[in-house]
């Protein structure tokens, strides 16, 4: 009888403890955000799509050599007098890319970097496999036009 009463009291206290836990959670700020309206900011070391500052590139081809999936391809022309290389074309295959970030690490002039794009969806297969890194507006369409009621 006495142990039964003890059980009841202990159970009652445990319920109160549980209520305290959920009560504390109720006062906290929500951890979720309204995704299509609010976009999360990616972390410092987030690795998105490969991107390039064409003016910094010296066409050394180190990134092409280190790429484990051969996703990068560049053509360069050499000036015969000064022996300086110029970038002709630079294409990037987003389908092959494994986002390892080795190209970013190996680049001597920090011309190559992985951007913070995480909404990577294309309408055509060819658009994804042949991305021209020299074009300035190559990733523009991945940032969708402003949704109505979009919060900053």
């Amino acid at each position, binding site marked *: 009888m006495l142990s039964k009463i003890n059980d*009841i009291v202990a159970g009652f206290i445990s319920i109160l403890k549980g*209520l305290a836990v959920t009560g504390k*959670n109720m006062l906290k700020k*929500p951890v979720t955000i*309204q995704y299509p309206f609010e976009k999360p900011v990616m972390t410092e070391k987030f690795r998105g799509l490969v991107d390039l500052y064409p003016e910094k590139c010296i066409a050394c081809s180190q990134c092409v050599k280190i790429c484990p999936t051969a996703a990068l391809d560049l053509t360069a022309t050499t000036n015969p007098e000064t022996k300086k290389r110029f970038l002709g074309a630079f294409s990037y295959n987003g389908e092959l890319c494994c986002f390892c970030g080795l190209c970013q690490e190996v680049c001597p002039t920090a011309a190559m970097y992985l951007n913070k794009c995480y909404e990577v969806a294309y309408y055509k297969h060819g658009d994804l496999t042949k991305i021209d890194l020299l074009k300035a507006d190559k990733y523009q369409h991945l940032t969708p036009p402003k949704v109505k009621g979009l919060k900053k």
Partner: protein
Amino acid sequence: MNYPLIDLVFLVVKGVYILAFFAVNAMFLIWLERKVSAKVQNRLGPMVVGPHGSLQLIADTVKLLLKENIVPSSADRFVWWLAPFFVAVPTIAAFLCVPFSNVWIVRDLNVGVLFICSITSVCVLGVFMAGWGSNNKYSLLGGMRAAAQIISYEVPLLLSVLVIIMEAGTLSMQGIVHAQEAGLFLLKPNVMVAFLVYLISATAEVNRVPFDIPEAESELVSGYHTEYSGMKFAMFFLAEYANLFIISAVAATLFLGGWIGFFRPSAVWFLLKVYGIISFLMWVRWTLPRVRMDQMMAFAWKILTPIALVNILVTGLLLVLKG
């Protein structure tokens, strides 16, 4: 002076008010439930339709109205069809005796408490009909569990209500509120015990967590309303939340003094108390896990009923000693 026609018109108007309140209140409670659950789980809940998702339930209701009503091929059609009405109609009828304020009550029956307690018990018939008519093992199990649970918890529920009736000396809802004008019943220790017993058994009565065994999702899909779709499902759903309102309204009237408050209009006080109790029950729902079937039955018969019985004895003794 007797004007039967005018009386009839007034009765119809009041009935329409009650029906409108039934629907709007249930929709509000579903929204509140989703918001409370989101708060407990650090989420936002419905946010898109209307400010803070307040119009979400209107969208959901339109969806349910337009949905196809699927009848299982082996169902007992008549029983299956009738079951949602057996759940919804007694619930609406129970609103007749809910005193929203000192004047806002459809009929102040002199057996008001008894009327509410008895007519809401008819719901169990509908629940069992739904379980039987669906011809589905999960539904049948859910219906049987619901019947066992509701009938068991009716006993401590009524015994705890009896304490209030003894204190007030009347069965009329308005009479009980008036009896509390001098001082709330809840301040007495024996009424506190009765309030606790009432809250626990009322939670079981409306099949809410931790006593949601008839609808246990992980075991029974969703219990007796597994096979229902469209508007029939909506009727079960609305009735469930209307029942939640009814038990909270009875608790507010019997234990917290109903519409008694510091300022007019008194209906505000009544609604504040009712939604306070409902919020507390929702908080409990999103905190506790489900109890086992045998534990629940043992709890009703071995713990709650003896406590309620002893409480009645103590109340009687106190009343006799007071003179």
